[in-house]
């Protein structure tokens, strides 16, 4: 497998696997083309808007698991506005890159975070500047 050491580390020891009961926001996205599905749970502080906790579950390839893991790490401790900046590029860079055919897997992570934020925003009737309504299937993008 052409994965970097960081990817393999996050694949073998995924951080933050699991779910959050009564999460502030939950996002699930899939890529119909490769069949993979990712779900992100966010626990957000009402006042500070800081992501106190973040967990994931992923049905997917090695890259999907590793990007989920890395994405949760990157999002934790950030405000919801900063969490928006956790792009797939940032996740990939943090993982020392992905093979070209696996770039789309990192998009799944970005979209799952956005979906969870959207869910939070809807539940709390707020708008988060710059957040667009996420798609449930991202395969048309690649």
């Amino acid at each position, binding site marked *: *497998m052409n994965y970097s050491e960081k990817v393999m580390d996050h694949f073998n020891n995924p951080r933050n696997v699991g*779910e959050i009961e009564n999460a502030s926001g939950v996002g699930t996205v899939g890529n119909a083309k490769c*069949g993979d599905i990712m*779900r992100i749970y966010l626990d957000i502080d009402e006042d500070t808007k800081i992501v106190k906790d973040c967990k994931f579950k992923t*049905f*997917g390839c090695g890259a999907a698991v590793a990007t989920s893991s890395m994405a949760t790490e990157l999002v934790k401790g950030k405000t919801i506005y900063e969490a928006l900046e956790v792009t797939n590029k940032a996740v990939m860079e943090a993982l020392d890159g992905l093979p070209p055919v696996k770039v789309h897997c990192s998009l799944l992570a970005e979209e799952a975070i956005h979906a969870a934020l959207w869910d939070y925003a809807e539940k709390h009737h707020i708008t988060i500047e710059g957040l667009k309504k996420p798609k449930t299937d991202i395969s048309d993008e690649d």
Partner: protein
Amino acid sequence: MSKLIYLDNAATTSVKPEVFEAMKPYYLENYSNPSSVYSFAGEAKKAMEDARKVIADSLGAAATEIYFTGGGSESDNWVLKGVAEAYQSKGKHIITSKIEHHAILHTCEYLEKHGYEVTYLDVDENGLVTPEEVEKAIRPDTILISIMFANNEIGTIEPIAEIGKVAHEHGVLFHTDAVQAYAHVPINVQEMNIDMLSASGHKFHGPKGIGFLYMSNKVKIGPLIHGGSQERSRRAGTHNVPGIVGMAKAAELAHANMDQTIAKETALRDHLIERLEKEIPYCRLNGDRVKRLPNNVNFCFRFIEGESLLILLDQNGICASSGSACTSGSLDPSHVLLAIGLPHEIAHGSLRLTLSEDNTMEEMDFVADQAKKIVERLRSMSPLYDDFVKQQKEQ
């Protein structure tokens, strides 16, 4: 467990030491071109013709009906394009199945772009093509029926003799891609009504880069590779003598021990299937349980994805595959699993374990143990499994 457990013999096999020894002199000593006229070349030529005889005998064919090629893909391409061109005055319709190897399917797509019509037969949930379906698809302009002997992913063995019979009753040529079956199960081209058969050396402990096409003397097609007058002017290119000799040695060894090999592999296979079925919930054996290659195990485990499974098996020294090696670059789920009716998300979680006689029962047990643990671990991470468990509770 530091030893490698190689369970990807459908992708390729190790070269047997005897095969390597047989090839060796044709690299270092008798390196001549068998088409040359001096006596030094006589040794290479004789070795090549002996090899041809070995292969012909193993199939019940004549030596003049064996053509050496660069591998299974070349043989498949040659048959389809060759028949398409040579028999176009009779018609432009070809019948094949939805579960063929890409060497057949992509060549058919190429022919479709060139004005040919191809019927891709459905298979049942075990991957079987029925002779009745074949018969129904035959038209007056059908020039070729090409159905694989055994499937490379799910191991299903097709009713070749019966399909061949139907083909011949309708005067249509019959080809079978036997890349996974040749030298693994007994084949007789006469009794099975086979006009053309593709095989590839590296799938039965011979070398890579060599294969053959059996083609009955009644078939008249032109070359895929034009040039010199090798292979009676039907396949140009300097003969790969070491490859030819090695492939024939591998064929000879395989046929000499076929009964024992089949018995041993079947026992290993069935033990592994039994353990996996019993110990891992929500799994499905793909392919026919009985009409099955003795070395093929193929499972889908619901709620998990194939690549992650493979990586974790790999970390435990187990070489396995999901789908076939040559499509590993692609993200699409296996066309074979879709053809047997699996939904996309399940087709993504398949595991193919293909044994050889070199494997042991201990290895099978180790693999079953590992697979069980890994599937559990991946399911604990899977949102699909979560949803499923919750649904179950609600009911």
